[in-house]
């Protein structure tokens, strides 16, 4: 145990902790789950949602586990009757100001709804609903991000993400009391703000109040998730491609990041990685091999015809002018295996080292 490490107790269990850590961090490492709505490991703790309140020995009030720093010998309780009573009231208050389904539970959204999950575990106190005059921006015509005020719990994860991670401060909390909402400067549409359309706000929102316009509804239960690597810049962000439909008609219907802490992008994506997937199924894709005819136009052909024509054409140039009159341009957009094959073709099949890709440029 180093000099900055010490023991604390959580639910009677002895845990090693370091100076500067929060109760939430130590508990997570020990496999003790503390519920939260407003916490995201990429953000500074805000203590805003009050869901993670715990008992700290010697403290009169319940304290937020996400923000409370541990100290030597501290004794923490994360589950008790007192905490359960607190949660019942707290969830009741949230539900009174939330869009509910027929069973009186927070509605399911395309992005899940963590408040719904909490309310399923702990039955909230039934309270009269309030009709909060919180406003959205229905006239915002940006193609990606919508805000549904009736689903917002004002935990400020989105605005803090926009400030602390993306650092563009396009959205902010505005107004007071029950009118508090997620706003932009002058309530302008996101296209007219500093927003870079990264969509991180959608990703971090715990209740689905921020909606991906391209995929606004929950995906069907049989949707597949395929982990892959983004095909734009060289950062190598990992993506989860959400695929709907069956063989032949299957489509990428949504792209998300793996959770924070798991991959090189730490839960983050940019506009291209998260949203620029329409090209995959675009009608302009080339779908047939093409051969240029006598008329100077490209005409559809079978694969056999096209591959034969390609090999004959390239072979003819080699015969006439030698192998070094050929050039093979491979692609940093294609896979490593395809680049390997291309250089093998250039070198082993045609006998020239005239093989490159755009890395010179």
């Amino acid at each position, binding site marked *: 145990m180093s000099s900055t490490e010490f023991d604390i107790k959580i639910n009677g269990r002895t845990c090693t902790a370091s100076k500067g850590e929060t109760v939430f961090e130590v508990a997570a490492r020990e496999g003790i789950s503390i519920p939260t709505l407003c916490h995201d490991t990429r953000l500074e703790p805000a203590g805003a949602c009050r869901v993670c309140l715990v008992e700290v020995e010697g403290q009169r009030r319940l304290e937020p586990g996400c923000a409370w720093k541990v100290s030597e010998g501290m004794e923490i309780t994360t589950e008790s009757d007192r905490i359960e009573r607190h949660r019942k009231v707290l969830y009741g208050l949230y539900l009174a100001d939330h869009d509910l389904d027929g069973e009186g539970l927070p509605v399911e959204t395309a992005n899940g709804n963590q408040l719904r999950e909490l309310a399923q575990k702990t039955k909230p106190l039934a309270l009269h609903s309030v009709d909060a005059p919180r406003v959205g921006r229905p006239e915002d015509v940006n193609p990606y991000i919508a805000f549904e005020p009736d689903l917002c719990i004002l935990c400020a994860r989105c605005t803090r993400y926009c400030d602390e991670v993306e650092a563009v401060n396009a959205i902010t909390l505005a107004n007071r009391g029950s009118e508090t909402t997620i706003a932009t400067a002058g309530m302008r549409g996101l296209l007219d703000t500093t927003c870079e359309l990264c969509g991180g706000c959608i990703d971090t929102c715990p209740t689905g109040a921020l909606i991906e316009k391209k995929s606004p509804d929950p995906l069907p239960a049989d949707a597949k998730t395929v982990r892959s690597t983004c095909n734009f810049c060289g950062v190598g962000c990992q993506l989860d491609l959400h695929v709907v439909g069956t063989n032949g008609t299957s489509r990428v219907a949504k792209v998300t990041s793996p959770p924070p802490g798991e991959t090189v992008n730490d839960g983050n994506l940019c506009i291209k990685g998260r949203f620029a997937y329409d090209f995959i199924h675009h009608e302009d894709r080339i779908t047939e091999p093409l051969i240029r005819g006598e008329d100077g136009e490209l005409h559809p052909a079978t694969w056999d015809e096209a591959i034969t024509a390609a090999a004959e054409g390239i072979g003819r140039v080699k015969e006439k002018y030698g192998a070094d009159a050929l050039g093979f341009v491979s692609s940093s957009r294609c896979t490593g295996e395809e680049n390997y094959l291309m250089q093998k*073709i250039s070198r082993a099949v045609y006998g020239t080292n005239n093989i490159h890709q755009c890395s010179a440029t």
Partner: protein
Amino acid sequence: MFGAGAMTNSIDEIRDADLLFVTGSNTTEAHPIIAMEMKRAIQRGAKLIVSDPRKIWLADMADIFLQIRPGTDVWLLNAMANVIISEGLTDDDFIARSTEGFEKVKAATAKYSPEEAEKVTGAPAELIREAARIYATTEKAGIYYTLGITEHTHGTDNVYCLANLVLMTGHLGKRSAGMNPLRGQNNVQGANDAGASPIFYPGYQNVTDESARKKFEEAWGVELSPNEGQNLNVMMKSVIKGKIRGLYVMGEDIVISEPNASKLEVGLNENCEFLVCQEIFHNVTTRFADVVLPGACFAEKDGVFTNSDRRVQRVRKAVDPPGNAREDWRILIDFAKASGYPMPDYASPSEIYDEMAALTPKVAGISHRRLEENIMGLQWPCPDPDHPGTPTLHIDGPLKGKADFQAVEYRPSDELPDDEYPLVLSTGRVLYHYNAATQTRREAGSMAKIGRNFIEMNRKDARRLGFHDGEIVDVVSRRGRIDAEVMISPRMRVGCVWMPMHFEESRANLLTNDAGDPVTQTGEYKVCAVRVEGRNGNGHKNPER
């Protein structure tokens, strides 16, 4: 100087850095997720030095911003070396232990005083001094650069100058300290690693090295050419000259992406006798193709991409290619067979990777099977199946034993402004689009943010020339003419303009200069001379119409 072109650090080390020196990289737009790591470091208290001709987004967060004239990097970096040496801030132990040739650099940089550098670069001498001091005296100091450094006729010199700074301060072989070229494309690292290079077999084994050649001849069962090939820039010039007469182009729009595009179009029309394009969309190059083979995009095939920090990660097939389009690796196998070569019947890219790994010590320990288990991917060097991969390079000293300093003298850019073409044009990428934009121009949000080509210029230039914001103008260089919308911007220096390279209908590369770096032949995309003409009689030197 100390190894292959790749980041010496890992992306997740950025957040722990205490100093970031970002030069020739508009990171927030070209590598937005790496920029998030930089922002995190800065919010934690790390210092930031930015040098760039444009007042890029990161410049607003910088402790020191050096807004240099385009193409004067050697002056700036040699002056920083001068300060570090003259103020005794060098890491003499590291220099003695791990490097050679320091005296040459000491002598060469002696005349690059910050005061003289100020005259050439436009960056204040005092800021150059301060930047040199905090770079040299901060332990966890990392350099991050990209094509703003390399796309010059002195791009190699720029890289040498940066490496000199790294070596004289010993900022190498430690977490968060090193030299980090941020690679521009998803798999540019992997394409080079796999041997798509005129001088290297897979894993940087030289084609002129006889033992390497023997190994590949044995594996592939044929005799191989002992001569170095032509790199892309030279290849394109050979097409223009009629020396290359057959091209097989997979997944690149060479006409929109290469400099001095109009000469290349003539070459493709008149000299190129056969052109095969393997593509997912029609582009400018497919207009010249004799055969077009429809390939698959990343979501439609299996394989690996290798990112900027040498991390090999899986690409997985999620959907089928459209219509009769096919996975590119299958097309290549069939093409090789039709050409009379007994290419093996690989059942999957995993088998292709295994063949490459067996011939390539750097990645010998990597396989698709291991990548299934390693969710974070594996970083090369990874020489055997039990090796965990290498997050930080040169931990045990430079890979090559001793690293060489390289003394560099300033050479001006190939084409400087004059009376006829008085403005300096640089080109680059914007956040919302990607290269030839065949993908992003089909995306509503990208087009809503930036839907057409623009030319960014300083308010003073715009006023002098009589342009207003949003006006359509012609941009003219010795090589071509395109139109664009004026964007008046506080980011630009007076006398400098900037354009993105994404737009097919208004191609910046009709203007750019294909003069190449003497070592890499990389074109000078970042500096060429242009004039801007208005449509209503305003602007500089209007043509007679």
